[in-house]
């Protein structure tokens, strides 16, 4: 059995040398690509964005104003214990910017997304970032490996419109482990002229929420209780055993069971149009809005494809992010779930919307409240 020390050494060594995977990637790309392009980019306007924690999204234009620009983001990686359910079960989390999922970054097609990734000295592991929205270098993973105490800046051109996952991919067995420890988020690349319906007509949203779904694999002791580890490295061996069983102990939205319910429930009003971006970096899922629909859904999340209409449940492939647009028509409490209902109810994948407004009797009426059976 590998001891805590050995794991630490292993991770330290990885931190120092990089893994074979990452090292290979670096070898393939001898230097930063084309200086000419960098020169062109130098003339572009720049915009600095302050990220906000999900389910909220930083302010942004739905239709781009002006030409392409460089949009700057900064994320600090935080390794820290996080509580993921009402029982106080602890995940030795690895996070982008302190939240699970990491924040949603919004740019427009043709913009350059420039991320400064900081791995503070207080962390113990090497991390990087693989942007599914980007092209080359393992999604940027090959150019962004940072040891504790380092930072790096990556710029990529947003050439495809859509919602895309980003995640940590520091090589070999570190990849799934970092991802199921919380290191994923999403990027939304909007078409410059905004979203369009199936007929190509412009559509907009009044509110946007970003729901990141995670599958966690927490080891149990002999009594069946979830185990607690001092550091991520301490738990590594046990966690991998649970991961290899492919049955998560938790499937949650926004990092913990119940993190989008009660006073943290998402809000909307009757008549408002809401865009829900849903990502899952590792495992398939099937969002469903109980009592509502998806008016326009980009299941695969790519806006060059016309949205599907009137969906009841949509499928988000593991390793992708999708988007669903819905105009609320009726007030009340809506549950937004992963419609594998075992995962929703027993494992945690339930969120709520509270929606205020006038009830529409035409859409639904309780004709006769429950009462004793008559006429049988």
């Amino acid at each position: 059995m590998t001891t805590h020390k050995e794991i630490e050494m292993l991770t330290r060594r990885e931190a120092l040398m990089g893994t074979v995977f990452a090292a290979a990637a670096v070898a393939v790309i001898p230097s930063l690509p084309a200086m000419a392009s960098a020169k062109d980019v130098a003339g572009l306007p720049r915009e600095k964005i302050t990220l906000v924690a999900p389910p909220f999204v930083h302010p942004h234009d739905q239709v781009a104003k002006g030409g392409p620009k460089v949009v700057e983001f900064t994320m600090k990686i935080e390794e820290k214990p996080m509580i993921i359910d009402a029982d106080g079960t602890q995940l030795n989390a690895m996070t982008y910017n302190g939240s699970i999922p990491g924040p949603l970054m919004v740019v427009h097609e043709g913009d350059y997304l420039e991320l400064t990734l900081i791995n503070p000295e207080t962390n113990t592991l090497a991390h990087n970032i693989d942007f599914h929205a980007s092209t080359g270098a393992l999604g940027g993973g090959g150019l962004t490996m940072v040891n504790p105490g380092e930072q790096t800046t990556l710029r990529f051109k947003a050439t495809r419109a859509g919602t895309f996952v980003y995640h940590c991919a520091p090589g070999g067995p570190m990849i799934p482990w970092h991802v199921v420890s919380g290191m994923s988020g999403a990027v939304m690349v909007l078409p410059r002229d905004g979203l369009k319906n199936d007929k190509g007509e412009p559509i907009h949203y009044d509110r946007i929420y970003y729901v990141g779904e995670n599958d966690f694999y927490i080891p149990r002791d002999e009594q069946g209780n979830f185990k607690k580890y001092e550091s991520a490295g301490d738990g590594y061996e046990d966690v991998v055993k649970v991961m290899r069983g492919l049955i998560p102990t938790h499937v949650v939205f926004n990092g913990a069971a119940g993190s989008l319910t009660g006073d943290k429930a998402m809000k909307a009003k009757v008549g408002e149009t809401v865009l829900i971006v849903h990502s899952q970096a590792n495992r398939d899922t099937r969002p469903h809005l109980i009592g509502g629909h998806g008016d326009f859904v980009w299941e695969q999340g790519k806006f060059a494809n016309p949205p599907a209409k009137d969906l009841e449940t949509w499928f988000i492939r593991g390793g992708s992010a999708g988007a669903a647009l819905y105009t609320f028509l009726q007030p009340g409490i809506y549950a937004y779930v992963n419609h594998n209902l075992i995962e929703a109810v027993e494992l945690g994948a339930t969120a709520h919307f509270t929606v205020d407004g006038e009830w529409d009797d035409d859409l639904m009426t309780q004709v006769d409240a429950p009462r004793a059976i008559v006429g049988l």
Partner: protein
Amino acid sequence: MPLNPLVILGSLAAAAMVSVGAASLSGLLANPSGNTIPIAETVILAPGSFMHPRPGEFLKDGHPVAAPLIPADIRNPVEIMKYQVSAQEYERCVEAAACEPVDKPGHGDQPVTGVSHIDAEAYAAWYSHATGQSWRLPSDQEWAYAAAERFTADIEGGKSDPANPAVRWLAEYRTESALDRKPDPTPRTRGSFGVNSKGVADTAGNVWEWTSTCYVHAVVARDGTSVESAIDNCGVSVVEGFHRTYMSNFIRDGKSGGCAVGTPPDNLGFRLVRDQPSFARSVMRRLGIS
């Protein structure tokens, strides 16, 4: 035909009394040398009356309304366990093969948790048998009386609009959210949540308690308090604690929240009430039959 809930509840309670009585008689016969089972510490509540928000779901003029507040008269003293049944006490029932073991045994003087209504009933039957006394789950009304100032009942938002059912749903949801009660799943030593004005310990702590009262759909009469008709479902029982809830009798862990809106109980446990020996039994005892 509309059923009168009071009649139903009354007849059920009577049936329960009969069976408990029978069990305790046979217990005495089987165990004539006296019992070795310690008798739980109890509190005797003097008769009195109080305003009781009835459990269940209520309709008035076809629309859901808050549970009617009815004056409840407790005519006889109620003798109720001061503490919830402990893990150690429950374990004796398991050892006697009369109770199902719990999934995660607690420590000695912590309340037993992870027990269903069925488990609680089994314990009451065994405990009555083993002690030669009549023990049963409290009714919701008795529990409310014992909980006194700590009694909450159903969470109500205080708002409703017959034209818009969502007004009530949203108000309840927000009221519950505003309570801001954090999950508190680890059972504590009995007494940790203190004693209320009636000397009863740990009501409204982090262990919710089963009652003998059935879940009911009722129609409130014009006067706003009396019940016109009701259909009960005794497969679901009223559970009391920090707030009132309703659980299927076979549920041992009430925590799974899911789409059901509302904060689930941290734990499920119970305490019992002791019925005074009936006149018939006193006579039998005097005649040396028991």
